[in-house]
C-alpha cells in the first residue's frame, strides 16, 4: 500500500520528523507533565505509520533501520535493565534509583531507573505497533 499523492508525500516528510521529536519530548517530560513512554511510543508509531502510508512498507523499514520485533525485544530488555540497580542493592524489585547529573550553569539532569523503564515501554509500544502495521502492509505486497 503506497500513495502517490504529492500532498501526502510532502506533508509526511515534514510532519514525521517533527512528530518523532515530539514523541521523544513527551517521553522525557512524562514524569512531570502529561506524556510518558506509552504515549510517546504511540505518537512515534503514528509518525512511522504516516510515513508508511506515504512511501510504503519497504522504505519505512529502511528508515526504521531495526526490525520492529527487535525493537520489541530491546524495549523489554530496557525495562528489565531498570530493575538491576535495585537488585544489586538488595532492595525490592523495581525500587527507583535517581542520579542527578550537573549540567553547565545551575541546571541538573534528572536520570533515574523509572526513566530507563519508560524508555523500555516506549520501545516496546513502538515495536508492537510497527510489527502489526509493517506485517499487515507487507502481506498485501
Amino acid at each position, binding site marked *: 500500500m503506497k500513495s502517490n499523492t504529492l500532498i501526502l508525500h510532502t506533508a509526511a516528510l515534514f510532519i514525521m520528523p517533527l512528530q518523532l521529536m515530539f514523541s521523544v519530548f513527551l517521553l522525557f517530560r*512524562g514524569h512531570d507533565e502529561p*506524556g510518558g513512554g506509552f504515549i510517546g511510543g*504511540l505518537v512515534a508509531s503514528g509518525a512511522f505509520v504516516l510515513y508508511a502510508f506515504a512511501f510504503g512498507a519497504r522504505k519505512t523499514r529502511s528508515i526504521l533501520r531495526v526490525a520492529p520485533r527487535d525493537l520489541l525485544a530491546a524495549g523489554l530488555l530496557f525495562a528489565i535493565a*531498570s530493575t538491576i540497580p535495585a537488585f544489586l542493592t538488595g532492595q525490592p524489585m523495581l525500587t527507583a534509583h535517581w542520579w542527578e547529573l550537573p549540567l553547565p550553569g545551575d541546571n541538573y539532569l534528572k536520570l533515574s531507573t523509572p526513566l530507563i523503564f519508560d524508555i523500555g515501554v516506549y520501545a516496546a*509500544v513502538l515495536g*508492537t505497533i510497527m510489527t*502489526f502495521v509493517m*506485517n499487515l502492509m507487507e502481506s*498485501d505486497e
Partner: protein
Amino acid sequence: MLLAVLSGFLLAIVTPALHRITGRYIGWTLAILPASLTAYFASLIPDIQANGSLMLEYAWLPGLGIDLNFLVDGLSLVFALLISGIGTFILIYAGSYLAGHNYLARFFVIMLSFMASMLGLVLSDNLITLFVFWELTSITSYLLIGFNHEDVEARKCALQGLFVTAAGGLTLMAGLILLAIMGDSYSLSEILSSDMALHEHAFYTAAVICILAGTFTKSAQVPFHFWLPNAMAAPTPVSAFLHSATMVKAGIYLMARLNPSLGEGELWGSALMLFGAATMVTGAYRAFSSTGIKNVLAYSTIMALGTLTMLIGVGTELALTAFICFLVAHSLYKGGLFMIAGALDHETGTKDITRMGGLRKAMPVTAAITCLAALSLAGLPPLFGFIAKELLFESLLDSPLWSAGLTTAAVAAAILIVGVAGLVAIKPFFGQVVNTPKSPHEAPFGMLVGPAVLSVTALVFGLAPFLPEGALLQSAAGSVKGVPVETYLALWHGVNLPLILSIGSLLLGLALLFRWSRLQPALYAINTYAARFGPEAGYFRFMEGITIVAAWQTRVLQNGVLGLYLLLLVAVTFGLTGYTLLSHHGFNLTLNLGDSHFYEWGIALLLVVAAIFACTTHSRLGSVASMGVLGFGVALTFILFSAPDLGITQLLVETLTVILLVLVLFKLPEFTNLSSPFERYRDLAVAVFAGGVMTLLILAALDIQYFESISSYYIENSAPLAYGRNIVNVILVDFRALDTLGEIFVLSLAALGVLSMIKLRAEDQHKL
C-alpha cells in the same frame, strides 16, 4: 549441605561439555560426584549418633515461609547414603552400558538431576520444598523412562508413569498443606517434635487419605502398581536406580518420615497394612509368573515396596527395625540384580529367561555375583536379606493387629520370592546351554563393579550386622518411630518360629521353582484374563474417557465461531458481576443530574448515536468509522474531566486502531449476514444486558466506598517519593511498575502472536 543437594544440578549443566572432554570415561568421571557425596554423608554419621539429628538452614523465600532447610537424621541419612552410594555405581554402569549412545550426555544430564532431586526430597525439612523435589523426581523420571523417545511404547509408558505419579503428586500437595495447617508449621521437624495430637484433628482423615494417595502412586502400591513394570521401557541403568534407591522409595520415605506424627491414628496403620500386604502378595505372584527378567525384578520390587509399607503400618519397634533392614537389604540386592539383568540383556541379546540357560561357563563372574544377590533376595543366610526376613516374620508374629493374616501373606510372598530368586539366579546360569541371539561373553568391568560391590556389602552386613546397626540403622529406626529404639540384629537367633517359617518357605519355594516351566502357561493364561479387569485396564478406560470429554467440550465450546466465544465471555462475566452487584448492593442508585453541563449532554448523545449506528450499519467502513467516533467521544470525556494522559492515550489508540482496521478491511470477505434473526436478538439481549450491568456498576461505584481510596496516597507521595508531578506516569513507571512490566510483556506476546498468524497465512498461500 546446600551444595551437596544442588551439586547434582550444577554438574548436570556442565555435563555436555564434560562429555566432549572425557569421551568414553564420562561415567567414571561423573561418578566422582556421588562418590564424594557418599563420603560427605558418611562423615555426618558420628554427628547423628551423638545428637540424633542435624538441621541446616538456608533462607530461600522467607516472605512465604519457604526455606531450604535440611533435616538430617538417621532416616534421611540412610536414604541419602543409598542414593549417592548406589548412584555412584549406576553412573559407572551407565557409562559402560550406553557407551557410544548418541544421547549419552543428555542421559547423564537427566540422571544427575534425578539424583539431585531425590537427595533434595529426602533431606528437605520444609514441606513445600519437599513437594518441589518430589515433583522434580516425577518429571525427571518421566524423561528417563521415555529416554528412548523414538520408541512409541517407551513414550506411552513414560506418560503413564507421569500421569499416575503426577496425579498422586497433586493429592499429596493437598495432603501436605492440610498437614501444615494441622501442625501449624511447614517445617517437618517442628511438626514431628510438636506434641499435638494430630489424629484428633478434624482434618486428620482427609490429610491421611491425600498423603497416602500421593505416596501409594509414587511407591507403586496396589492398585497403582501397574506403572512400575511399564517403566521398564527405560534403559536398564535407570531401572536399576529407580527401583533400588530412588523414585519408588520416595513414597516409602515420606510414609516413614510422617509415621511419628500420623501413625497414632487408626486409619494410618490399617490402611498401610492392608494395602501393603495386598501389594506384597500381588507383586510376589506377578514376579513369579513373568518371563522377562526385568519384569520379574520389577514385580519383586513391588513386593518389597508392599512389605515396607506394611511394616510401617504395623509400627512396633521390631517392625520398624525390620523396615529399615529390609529397606537397606532390598536396595543392595535390587540395584545389583537390575544391573546384572542389563548385563545379561547386553551380552546375550534377550530379556526372556526361558531363552537363557547354562551361561555360567561363558559368564562366570556374573554368575557368582548374581547368586550372591539372589541369596539376599531369597532371604538366605549369611546375607543381609536373611536378617531382614527373619525380622519381618518376627515382627509380624508380634503384630498387635491382624498378626495371623499378615504372617500368612508374608509367608506366601516369601515362598514365591524364593522361586523368583531361583528364576533369576538358576534359570539363566545353570542347566542346559541355550542358544541366545548373541554369543555370550563376560560383561565389561564397568558393568560388573556395581553389582559386585553391592552384593559384597550385603554379605558383609549379613556377617557383621552390628556394623550398619551401630552406625545408622538404630537411629534410623528411631526416626521412624519418633522415639529412640533399641535394636538387636544378629544372623543367628536360635531355632524359633521365624526360622522355621523361613525354612518352610525355602523348601516350598524350591518346589515351586522346579515346576515353574509346567506352571508357566497356566499362569500366563490367568494373567492375560485378569488384565482385562485389572487397574491398568481402568487406567486406559479413564484416559479414553478424558479424550472423549475433551473432544466433546472442544466441539461445544471451542468450535471456532468467534461470535460464540465473545457471547459466552460477555454473558458469563457480566452475569457473575451482575449477580454479585445485586446481591451485595441491591438496586438503590442515586443519580444526580443537576450540575451537568450542556456539552456533557452533547458528548453523551454523540456516543449513543455512534454506538447505535455502529451496530446497525451494513457497511464495514461505516462501522469502523463510527467506532472511531465512539473512541474520540470517550477521549473527549477524559479531557473534560481533567485526565489529559488518558485522553491523549485514548486518542492515539483510537487513531491507530482505525488505521489497523483500514489495513485489514480490504482483506475481509463481503459483509454478509450469517446469523438467523433469533441469534441476532439473542446477541442484542446479551449486549444490552452487559451494557446495563456496566452502567449500574459505574453508578454503584460512585456510591460505595469499601476501602479508603488509594488515590490520595498517590497524590501526596508522588512528588516527595518519586520526584514526579504527573501522577499517572509515576504510577505507571514507579509505584506500580511491576504491573506495567507485565503489561509490556503481554503486549509483546500479542505482537508475536499476530506476527506468526500473518506469516503463517502468507506461507500457506505460497504453498497453495
